[in-house]
């Protein structure tokens, strides 16, 4: 249906274009006046007046149509005096109604569902027809308006360009909309969560076991249930696990990354650099799910067997395995950025050092690196931010049990793992369990935001010195 509408809009717009163009030509010949722009622009002008309002209305309508219909039907259902339904049951019934309408419902058809399907059908057809009517009348109105303007010989090119610039501006607003969307969706659920669980218990509690949260409706928690819940959502072990695995990752990535960056910037010949830099960057291009698979398949078991031989108890989902593989993934972030930063240190500084009789390594260690330090620190912070936000490697290779430990041979879990675990599977959407995932997401979002901000400040400070 929407496709047909889109095609129709397309045809109308094209027709408007042709009409607008010919109309302005007629006007100029009959009134022999000069026009303000090329005839094409008048065509575009009319076509835009035809298409844009209709498209916007179509888009907004399509976005909200489904939820509005669902809302209407849900309301009817919740007004049923015989059975009082929870919101999840309403959801379930609604889905059954929709499948019945679509012809693929295979369960028992109750009267309620049948009635609901009929309602759905009528709502849909009402929606369809009103949509078409609305769009048609909009199109007529806007096209008429456009024709009037053309007849008054408006500055078509100017107007078209203004509309175009407005369109460009709107596109750049999408970035703000996205950020707002993220903050809104995270906050919305988090606030629901924090109405059940105290924010201090969440941030500072040391025991994380959401399985204990059976409660469905946050507002109906009894005192005993709350006392129990209090200890189920303490995220300190998650913060610790995240930090710990990130630390292991950085222990691998920083030395290897920094030294590769230094070697490629200062020592390597052009041939070697041309060859090795792309290969190292492949590490950044490999999807993290591949790393996760590799860690779970090869690295984890290897450490476990190796540990057994040494008489140590090593989990097959050790923090060491996950951290190591994550470190390998991060190497190119450190090495590429360091390479660029070192390369931009001016040669005159190196010359000054060589002239005094320093060796190459002394020059690098005592002149170049200190000069490049803010940039290098910035790149390391960005890498840390990447490590903290990483999901697949830890989901597949690190553990699921929150465990406050500093032993890398044990398994710990991270913020990102828990977000995935809480949301996968059959969860009711409004339980504290799923809401806690959003609260974790909010924490993660702010943590990476702050890290990135500090990192960029560092890099900026460095650029100021040398640009």
């Amino acid at each position: 249906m929407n496709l047909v509408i889109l095609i129709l809009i397309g045809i109308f717009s094209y027709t408007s274009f042709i009409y607008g163009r010919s109309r302005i030509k007629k006007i100029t010949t009959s009134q022999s006046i000069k026009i303000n722009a090329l005839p094409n622009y008048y065509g575009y002008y009319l076509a835009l007046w035809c298409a844009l309002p209709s498209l916007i209305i179509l888009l907004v309508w399509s976005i909200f149509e489904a939820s509005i219909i669902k809302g209407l039907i849900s309301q009817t259902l919740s007004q049923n005096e015989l059975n009082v339904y929870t919101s999840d049951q309403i959801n379930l019934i609604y889905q059954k109604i929709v499948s019945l309408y679509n012809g693929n419902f295979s369960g028992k058809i109750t009267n309620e569902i049948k009635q609901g399907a009929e309602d759905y059908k009528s709502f849909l057809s009402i929606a369809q027809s009103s949509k078409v009517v609305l769009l048609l009348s909009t199109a007529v109105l806007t096209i008429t308006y456009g024709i009037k303007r053309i007849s008054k010989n408006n500055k078509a090119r100017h107007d078209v360009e203004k509309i175009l610039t407005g369109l460009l501006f709107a596109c750049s607003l999408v970035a703000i909309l996205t950020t707002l969307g993220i903050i809104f969706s995270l906050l919305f659920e988090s606030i629901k969560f924090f109405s059940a669980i105290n924010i201090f218990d969440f941030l500072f509690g040391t025991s994380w076991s959401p399985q204990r949260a059976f409660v469905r409706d946050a507002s109906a928690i009894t005192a005993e249930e709350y006392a129990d819940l209090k200890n189920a959502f303490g995220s300190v072990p998650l913060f610790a696990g995240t930090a710990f695995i990130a630390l292991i990752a950085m222990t691998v990535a920083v030395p290897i990354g920094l030294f590769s960056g230094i070697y490629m910037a200062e020592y390597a010949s052009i041939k070697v650099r041309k060859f090795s830099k792309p290969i190292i960057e492949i590490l950044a291009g490999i999807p993290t799910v591949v790393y996760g698979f590799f860690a779970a398949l090869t690295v984890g078991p290897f450490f476990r067997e190796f540990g057994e031989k040494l008489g140590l108890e090593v989990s097959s989902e050790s923090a060491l395995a996950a951290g190591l593989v994550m470190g390998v993934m991060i190497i190119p972030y450190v090495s590429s950025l360091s390479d660029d930063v070192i390369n931009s240190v001016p040669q005159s500084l190196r010359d000054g050092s060589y002239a005094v009789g320093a060796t190459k390594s002394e020059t690098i260690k005592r002149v170049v690196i200190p000069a490049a330090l803010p940039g290098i620190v910035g790149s390391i912070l960005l890498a840390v931010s990447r490590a903290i936000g990483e999901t697949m490697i830890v989901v597949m290779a690190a553990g699921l049990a929150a465990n406050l430990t500093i032993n890398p041979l044990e398994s710990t879990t991270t913020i990102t793992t828990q977000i995935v675990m809480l949301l996968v599977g059959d969860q009711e959407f409004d339980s504290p369990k799923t809401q806690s995932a959003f609260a974790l997401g909010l924490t993660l979002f702010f943590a990476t935001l702050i890290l990135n901000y500090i990192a960029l400040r560092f890099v900026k400070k460095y650029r100021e010195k040398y640009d």
Partner: protein
Amino acid sequence: MTKEERIKKRYNAEKRFKLYGITSVVLAILFVVFLIYVIFSKGSSAFQKTIINVEINFTLDSLYLDPNPSKDDLENVEYYDLAIESLLKVYQVNGLKEEKALINLFSPDYEYEVRDFLIKNPEFINKKTILKLTASDDMDQLHKGNYPRHLPEDRRRINDFQLMMYDKLVEQNKIDKIFNNYLFQKGDSRNPELAGIGGALVGSFFTIIITLLLSFPIAIFASIYLEEFAPKNRITDFIEININNLAAVPSIVFGLLGLGILLGTFDLPRSTPLVAGITLALMTLPRIIIPCRASLKAVPPSIREGALAVGASKVQSVMHHVVPLAIPGTLSGTIIGLAQALGETAPLILIGMVAFVVDIPSIPTDPSASLPVQVYLWSEQAERGFVEKTSATIMILLSFLITLNFIAVYLRQKFERKW
């Protein structure tokens, strides 16, 4: 310390330092090579599947058909009896237990394989032929050399009798390996030997198309605005800060966004490439804007001024002169952004693309999986046979990514203009 000793110490430090550098580079390269080696060695066997040759006689009686059956007749008839009968002829068995053992050598789809053959080749009615039927997962792994046959019988799924049948069948050349078309044609399955990435391939394809269609135009327009038209005020600064932040937000947060708003508020269908495409488009947007702006910035002012001097409006000078010159760099960045989107898993898991999808999706609003999500799902399965499938999927995914990156680099080099 004498002068000589000191100089020697300094030169040794120099050598050590250089050594650390070389070691690091070599280590990093070794990691890449090792990773690729492990994946490829585990995955290459998935491109073949084990089959067992079975003689089938498509008599009318065996299918309870009348003479001159129509196509509908062939589709509606029961093939189970014919299949079982033919399977049991493959080896001499006595008693129910041995019969069961023989039938378990085959993948449980035998009935449908026989059926599909006859429907495709109806000329074989009343004729005999030898079909290559898919072997079970255990047989498949056994034939590929991955099975621990040395273990005592009570610790493995294949019993001694089945092992004996296997060995005899190998002797008689009735077991073979052929190209595994199921890997590409079929959707997901509980049985590794029947599992394929067909669904995931189509799902990824739809997703990437939607991501491209949404993110590319919006990103280009946004870049053009920010680079060419935006006034230097606080709103513009704010937009730029937002874009830079979004580029660094972890991908899982975008998954939460998709879950909360696309699935929650807008009630779009779960598990579909449509939602995945929109989510990934939002994530890819800043990653296209940043290289696009760089390309626009690199176009020298003389081009813009030249156009303006001839009487073009600002919009015309930008659209007709500047943007075309910035396209190659932008394309390059776009392709790289798309390649990253192709490999994303976490956000797609959150919006539900973990469904067990057997049918290959036909439109972007059918539920499906994507290639990386399929890798994740299969890696969680216990059967040994899934290891090779997962690795093979990774191989296919990596080849797409490498191709995309090559195209991006090629474009960049071919169209790079040194101002």
